[in-house]
């Protein structure tokens, strides 16, 4: 402190001589170190976004944005190339939708079971077990869909092709199940015990308490878990690349091979499209689209949680 000094303490016996200058430098150093590490993630995000914007800009120099949005064919690797992103979006939408139909009910039921019905000893084991499912590599899920789920489905779904959106979507649902169940469970567990007691005290049964009091109170967290689940499903790559096929076609038929945005990016990235070629920058335009979709989902989730979260003291 250079500008002002506290008056000397009358009790100063000379035993107290803190090194204020050193404390201050250490404070500053800590700030810089932590700040630098914090900046790494922000800088990475900014770098990715800038790359996407730059390459996407180049892409739209070659391909009019109107064609990108309205064409109904996706044939960028052919000579007579067409760039209808709707083809890839429809496939992503289809697999994600199937995934959500699988994961939503299972996730919420698993969450209710864990937080309300399972004895605490069982909960202690079940929850980590569920989270292990999230640790299974998605490439394993992909082959699980292709070699296990598809053949089973073939026995009772007429016209099912070996590569199809249905089995990819179902397994995608299993892959995002831990996300939904775990986050929903956190939300349900966070509902204050006093609300449950209030409900029981009115003569409600456990089921009435869960469906009428606990689930509505946890709604914002549950919806947030759904949205994060969707965002994961939309961005998920290996399962759909392996099990849904590589055929870009505009359809909502879950029985035939389709190509999602992510599996298109894989297809180009593993091929031999030269850097800077139109085929190559196409993946950035697709990546940008994917990024925008997940950004909107995350922003919506953020808004929804803030808007509908019940605040308990």
């Amino acid at each position, binding site marked *: 402190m250079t500008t002002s000094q506290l008056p000397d303490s009358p009790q100063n016996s000379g035993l107290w001589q803190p090194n204020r200058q050193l404390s201050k430098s250490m404070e500053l150093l800590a700030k810089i170190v932590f700040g630098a590490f914090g900046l790494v993630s922000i800088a990475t995000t900014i770098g990715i976004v800038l790359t996407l914007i730059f390459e996407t800009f180049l892409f739209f120099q070659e391909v009019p944005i109107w064609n990108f949005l309205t064409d109904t064919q996706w044939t960028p690797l052919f000579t007579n190339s067409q760039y209808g992103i709707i083809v890839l979006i429809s496939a992503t939408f289809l697999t994600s939708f199937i995934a959500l139909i699988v994961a939503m009910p299972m996730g919420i039921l698993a969450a209710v079971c864990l937080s309300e019905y399972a004895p605490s000893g069982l909960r202690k084991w079940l929850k980590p077990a569920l989270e292990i499912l999230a640790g299974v590599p998605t490439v394993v899920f992909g082959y699980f869909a292709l070699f296990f789920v598809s053949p089973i489905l073939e026995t009772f779904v007429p016209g099912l092709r070996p590569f199809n959106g249905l089995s990819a979507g179902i397994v995608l649902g299993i892959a995002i199940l831990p996300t939904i169940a775990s986050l929903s469970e956190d939300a349900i567990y966070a509902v*204050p015990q*006093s*609300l449950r007691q209030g409900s029981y*005290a*009115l*003569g*409600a049964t456990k089921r009435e308490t869960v469906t009428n*009091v606990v689930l509505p109170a946890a709604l914002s967290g549950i919806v947030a878990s759904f949205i994060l689940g969707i965002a994961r499903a939309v961005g998920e790559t290996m399962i759909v690349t392996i099990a849904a096929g590589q055929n870009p076609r505009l359809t909502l038929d879950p029985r035939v091979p389709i190509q999602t945005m992510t599996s298109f990016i894989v297809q180009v990235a593993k091929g031999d499209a030269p850097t800077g070629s139109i085929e190559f920058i196409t993946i950035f335009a697709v990546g940008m689209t994917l990024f925008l979709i997940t950004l909107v989902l995350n922003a919506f989730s953020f808004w929804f949680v803030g808007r509908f979260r019940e*605040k308990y003291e």
Partner: protein
Amino acid sequence: MQTNPSTAVGAGTTFHVAQANYYYGSFLAVSNVNLDIPERKITAFIGPSGCGKSTVLRCFNRLNDLIPGAHVEGTIQYRGVDLYDKSVDATELRRRIGMVFQKPNPFPKSIYENIAFGARINGYKGDMDELVERSLRKAALWEEVKDKLKESGLSISGGQQQRLCIARAIAIEPEVLLMDEPCSALDPISTLRVEDLMHELKEQFTIVIVTHNMQQASRVSDMTAFYNAQATEKGGKQGYLVEYAPTQTIFNNPAQQATQDYVSGRFG
């Protein structure tokens, strides 16, 4: 649940508690409780923290059933029927014995739905609008919320929330109202409103109130039970009933020295 008048312990007794011990697992948490709670009177439970007053209160609607390992020995009768008999359905019991909690705990639903919920799950077939209005009027809240029944029960002040919880409890037309420190989270003005309300409600309900506030007990109650706690060897606390008598006696002429010390503010 059947009421058999021949086994009832004296007319006008709502709860008959005899030689009751309360355990968490093997730990004896509250011991040797004996009291008869009179009908349509306010009975206050007072005592220091950990003395078991809330625990005994929660036996009356069997809310303690929700705690794993908790159990009761001895007799707790409601109008002559053993509360802990296997034939007694706890949900039916809780419809008859309402409860208001320490912290206001309205459901995250509209004010209207907070009241209607209990009625609905208990199969109420009457006019719901009318029931909501009547309950809110009884809880002295109607005038303040009648224009915002669709707003969240959490949007009103703490004192209003607590009266909403009282309205919610009396909406299902219980016979008894248990109140577990209903004013401890409220400011003095809200507290007075709730106390006034209790005086009106006792025309219709038997009320048992747990309170930390001795002035409140002396203001509102007809009977007072004083509980005390003793430290156990393992560092826990064991509660027991010291004295149960008309409120006048407890505050002016108690039989036990401990009661005298507590009500005169010498400890607790």
